[in-house]
C-alpha cells in the first residue's frame, strides 16, 4: 500500500477562514491509510515546499496529496517539488479546496466537510496512480509541403531558412499557384509577379528545399514525427537540367491547347512552359495533348531540340519520402461557372470569370494588359462585375462567403478604370466585405474618386442583345429594377477547395468541412494545425483567403512545424488510453469514437491498439468501450469509481 502524506494549505486566511484546516489534518492523520498529514500557511512558498520534501524523506512517503488552490495554479510547482524529493510527478494530486471550496462557501463546518470529501477523493485517485514518463519517439527533421502557391512557398522558405529540409510537392509543372496569374493585387496594387517571382527563384535555389513538380502525394503512413509519404511524379519528357528554355520545340509543335495559365483565353503548345518565369525553368511535354511520342506520329520537338533535353522514353516515377511533418497548402479553385446557367457563361464569350479578367488585365496576359473583350477584341466601355457568384447561395450553390471576391471585384473595377479612362465599371453586390487593413479606404477611394457604381442587389439574368450583354439587376436601395447594357460581364466566382483535394484529404486522413476545406484543429486557438498530429495547413486550402492572410498563416504554420522539428524526440503526455488485451473483445467501437485516429485494430490478435503519440487522452473511447478493456492512465474506471464512493458516502 502507498505511503501517503496529506498537506493542507491555509493560503493565508483564504482557505483557513472557511475550512478548519487544523481539524482536517488531525482527521487525516488519524486515518489508517494516511502516513502523515499536516497543514501550513503557504504550501506553495519555498518553506512550504521544503516541508513537503522533508516529510517525503522522513516518512518515506511515495504519494502526496496537496490540498490547496486550483491545480491550474500550482500543480507544476508541487510536481517539481516531489520530483526533487525523488518521486514521480504523477504521485501527487492537488485537492482544489480554495477556488472550488473556501472561496465559494461561507459556512465553515460545511466548507470543512466538503474539503474533507475533496481531499478524500484525491487520496483515492492517488492510491491507484501509476508512475509515468512522457512517451516519446524519434523524429525525422524534415517537412513536406504539398502545393506550391504563395502559401506553400512561404511555408517552405520559412522552414528551410530555419535550417530544416523541405520537400515540396506541386502537381502542376510550375510553382506559383494562382497568385502568379494575378495582375496587380489589392490593397496596394503591386504587381503580383514582381513580388512573387523572387520568392519562387529563392525557393528553387534554396539548398534545403527539394522541389518536385508534376507530382502528387499518393499515400502516407506513420505518424507525427515519422511519416512515410509516397509521391508520384508524372513524366515530364524534358530534362529540366538540360532545357535552356529556348522555346525552339514549341515553335514547331503543331498542337494548340488552351492555356491553363491564361484561363483558356490564350493558347499554348503541347510542349510548353506554363509562363516565362516558371519554376523550375523548363519546358514540359503534355502527354495528353501530344500527337504521339514518336517520329512516326510527330516527333518534331525532339528533332528540333539542340540541347537534347527531350526524352520520349521518360516514365512516371514513384518514390518515398520520410518527413516529420506535412503541410497541406493546396489552395483553391473557382466554382464551376457553368453551374450558374442564368449568367450565360459559355454561351456569351464576353461573360468571363474573375480569373480570366485577371489575365486580361495582366501585362503577361493574352492581350498584353490592354483591356479587350474576348468576342471581338473591342475595348469594353461598360463592364459589369457581379459579386457572390455561387457564394452565399445555400439553395443552389454554396452557403459560405468566399471572402476575397468583394475586394478583387473592386480591384478589377479600379484597374479597368485605370486602363480605360472613359470606361464605366458597375459592381452588383449584396454586402461589401472589406475588413482588412486599408481595405475600406481602398473601397471608398474607388467609389468617390473613380466613380465605380456600386449597385446593391443580385443580378437575376444576363441576355445578349446584339453585341451587348443585357444585365437584369436590382437596386434594392432605390427599390428599382436596373438594366445595364454592358460590353462585358465579369463573374466573381466562389472559391472552392482545389480540385482533387478531397482525394488528398482522404489519403492524408485529414478532416475537411462539408465544403471540402481542410479543417483546422481549433478555429481560434489552433488555426494552422489540423486535427491529425503532425499535419498542418496553410493558405486557401483551409478557407478562402487573400494573400496577406495566406502568407500570415503560412508563416504561422512554418513556426509550428519548426517547433515540432526543433526537438530530437517528440514528447507526449502519458495520460492516454490503454487497452487490456485480455478484456478487449475486438468490437472496434473505440476506433470509430476516436477523433484523432489514434485507435487501430490489430488484425492478427483482434485487440484494439492505442497509438501513444496520437492519443490526446480525451477518454471518449474509454467511456464507449463496452467491455471495460479501454482504460486511461491515472484516470481508470476504478479510480473514478472510488472517488465517487467517497463522495457518495459523504460524512456518514
Amino acid at each position, binding site marked *: 500500500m502507498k505511503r501517503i502524506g496529506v498537506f493542507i494549505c491555509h493560503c493565508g486566511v483564504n482557505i483557513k477562514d472557511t475550512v478548519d484546516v487544523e481539524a482536517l489534518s488531525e482527521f487525516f492523520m488519524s486515518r489508517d491509510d494516511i502516513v502523515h498529514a499536516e497543514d501550513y500557511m503557504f504550501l506553495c512558498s519555498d518553506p512550504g515546499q521544503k516541508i513537503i520534501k522533508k516529510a517525503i524523506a522522513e516518512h518515506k512517503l511515495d504519494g502526496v496529496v496537496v490540498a490547496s488552490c486550483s491545480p491550474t495554479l500550482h500543480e507544476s510547482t508541487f510536481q517539481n517539488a516531489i520530483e526533487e524529493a525523488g518521486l514521480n510527478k504523477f504521485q501527487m494530486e492537488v485537492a482544489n479546496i480554495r477556488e472550488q471550496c473556501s472561496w465559494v462557501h461561507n459556512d465553515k463546518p460545511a466548507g470543512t466537510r466538503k474539503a474533507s470529501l475533496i481531499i478524500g477523493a484525491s487520496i483515492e485517485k492517488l492510491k491507484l496512480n501509476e508512475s509515468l514518463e512522457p512517451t516519446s519517439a524519434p523524429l525525422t527533421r524534415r517537412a513536406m509541403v504539398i502545393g506550391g502557391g504563395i502559401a506553400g512557398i512561404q511555408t517552405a522558405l520559412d522552414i528551410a531558412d530555419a535550417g530544416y529540409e523541405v520537400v515540396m510537392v506541386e502537381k502542376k509543372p510550375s510553382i506559383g499557384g494562382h497568385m502568379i496569374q494575378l495582375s496587380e493585387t489589392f490593397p496596394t496594387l503591386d504587381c503580383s509577379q514582381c513580388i512573387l517571382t523572387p520568392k519562387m527563384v529563392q525557393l528553387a535555389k534554396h539548398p534545403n528545399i527539394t522541389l518536385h513538380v508534376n507530382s502528387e502525394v499518393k499515400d502516407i503512413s506513420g505518424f507525427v514525427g515519422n511519416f512515410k509519404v509516397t509521391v508520384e511524379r508524372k513524366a515530364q519528357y524534358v530534362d529540366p537540367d538540360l532545357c535552356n528554355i529556348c522555346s525552339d520545340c514549341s515553335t514547331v509543335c503543331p498542337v494548340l491547347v488552351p492555356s491553363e495559365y491564361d484561363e483558356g483565353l490564350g493558347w499554348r503548345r503541347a510542349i510548353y512552359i506554363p509562363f516565362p518565369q516558371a519554376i523550375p525553368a523548363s519546358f514540359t511535354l503534355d502527354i495528353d495533348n501530344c500527337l504521339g511520342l514518336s517520329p512516326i506520329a510527330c516527333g518534331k520537338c525532339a528533332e528540333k531540340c539542340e540541347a537534347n533535353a527531350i526524352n520520349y522514353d521518360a516514365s512516371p516515377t514513384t518514390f518515398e519520402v520520410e518527413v516529420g511533418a506535412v503541410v497541406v497548402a493546396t489552395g483553391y479553385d473557382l466554382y464551376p461557372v457553368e453551374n450558374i*446557367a*442564368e449568367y450565360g457563361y459559355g454561351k456569351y464569350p464576353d461573360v468571363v470569370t474573375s480569373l480570366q479578367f485577371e489575365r486580361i488585365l495582366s501585362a503577361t496576359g493574352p492581350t498584353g494588359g490592354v483591356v479587350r473583350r474576348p468576342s471581338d477584341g473591342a475595348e469594353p466601355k461598360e463592364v459589369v462585375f457581379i459579386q457572390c457568384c455561387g457564394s452565399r447561395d445555400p439553395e443552389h450553390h454554396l452557403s459560405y462567403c468566399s471572402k476575397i471576391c468583394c475586394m478583387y471585384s473592386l480591384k478589377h473595377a479600379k484597374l479597368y478604370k485605370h486602363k480605360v479612362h472613359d470606361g464605366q465599371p458597375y459592381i452588383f453586390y449584396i454586402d461589401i466585405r472589406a475588413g482588412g487593413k486599408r481595405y475600406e479606404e481602398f473601397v471608398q477611394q474607388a467609389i468617390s474618386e473613380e466613380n465605380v457604381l456600386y449597385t446593391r442587389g443580385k443580378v437575376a*439574368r444576363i*441576355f*445578349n*442583345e*446584339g453585341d451587348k450583354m*443585357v444585365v437584369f439587376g436590382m437596386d434594392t436601395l432605390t427599390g428599382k429594377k436596373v438594366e445595364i447594357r454592358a460590353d462585358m460581364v465579369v463573374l466573381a466566382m466562389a472559391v472552392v477547395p482545389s480540385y482533387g483535394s478531397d482525394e488528398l484529404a482522404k489519403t492524408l486522413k485529414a478532416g475537411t468541412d462539408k465544403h471540402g476545406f481542410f479543417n483546422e484543429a481549433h478555429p481560434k486557438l489552433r488555426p494552422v494545425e489540423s486535427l491529425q498530429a503532425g499535419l498542418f495547413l496553410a493558405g486557401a486550402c483551409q478557407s478562402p483567403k487573400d494573400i496577406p492572410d495566406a502568407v500570415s498563416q503560412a508563416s504561422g504554420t512554418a513556426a509550428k512545424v519548426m517547433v515540432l522539428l526543433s526537438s530530437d524526440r517528440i514528447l507526449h503526455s502519458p495520460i492516454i488510453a490503454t487497452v487490456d488485451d485480455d478484456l478487449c473483445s475486438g468490437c472496434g467501437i473505440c476506433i470509430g469514437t476516436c477523433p484523432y485516429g489514434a485507435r487501430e485494430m490489430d488484425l492478427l490478435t483482434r485487440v484494439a491498439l492505442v497509438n501513444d503519440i496520437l492519443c490526446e487522452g480525451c477518454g471518449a473511447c474509454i467511456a464507449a468501450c463496452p467491455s471495460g478493456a479501454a482504460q486511461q492512465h491515472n484516470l481508470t474506471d476504478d479510480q473514478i469509481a472510488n472517488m465517487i464512493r467517497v463522495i457518495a458516502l459523504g460524512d456518514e
Partner: protein
Amino acid sequence: MQLPYYPGCTLKNHAKHFEDSAIAAMERLDMPLVEMEDWVCCGTVFSMSSDDLMLQVASIRNLVRAEHQNLSELIVLCSMCYNTLRRASDFILSDPENLDKVRKFMYLEEKPFDGTVEILHLLSVLRDRIGWEELGRKVVRPLANLKVGGYYGCLLVRPEKYAIDDFEAPTIIEDLLGALGATASPYPYRLECCGAYQTVTNKDVTVQRTYELLNSARNAGCEAIVTSCPLCAFNLDQRQRETIEQFPDFDPMPVFYFTELMALAFGANWDPEWTKLHFVNPEPILRDKGLI
C-alpha cells in the same frame, strides 16, 4: 402503345387546335392519345396556401378518377394542367393529415386517393420514350428553313422540382424543334413570364410583356414561336391585337402549339379550322416554307 391523356378545359374550345394537332401527331407516332373519362377542370393554378385543401380538390378528383380507371399515368399537354396536377398530388401526399382530409371529403368518389398516377407532360414523353433521334426519323415533312423559338414560360420549368428540364437552361423544346427539322433559336426571354392571369386585370401589362417577349424572339431571328400553354398562347397570340395598336413598330408573329408543328412534320395536313383559332395567321409562313 396508347397514351392516356388529360386534356383540360381550354383544349376543348379555344385551344382545340392544340388537342387536334396533338392527336394527329401522336397517331402518326403510333402512340395514340386516349382521353381519360370523366375529367374535370384541374383548377388551372396550384394554390400555394398551406391550409386551403379545397383548392386542391379539383386536381385530386381527376387523379382519383384516373386511378379508378386503372390508369398509371396521365399525359398532359397544357403546362398549367401539368404543373397544377403534379403539385396538388405531391402536396396532398406529403402530409398524411391532408391526405386523410381529402379522402374524407371525396367519399363520393368510387375509390380513395392513393396518388399512384404519374403525371407527365407530353414533351418529356417524347424525349424519354421516343427520343429525338427516333423522332427525327419519323419526320416526313421536315420543317426546313423555319426559324422558330421555343417559349417555355413559367410552369414547364418552375418550380425546379417539377421542371421537365434544367430549370435555368432547358433545351427540350429546341431539341424537339431541331428533331422536326426546324431551326430553333433560343432567345433571351424564352423563360420569362407572359403575365399569366394578369391579362384579365392588368391587360396593358400583358400587352407590354407580349411586345417585349416577341421582340426578343424576333431579334434572335425567330419567325414564329411555339408554346405548350393556352394561357401563354392567349397572351402572346391574341394579345397581339392590342400590341399592334399600342406599339406601332411591332411586327406580329405567329404563335404555334408545338403539336401543330409536330403534326405537320409527321405528315398530317394543316386543318384550316386551326387557323381560325390563331390571331396572327400562321398560314403565310407555312406556305412560304412549303409546309402547306
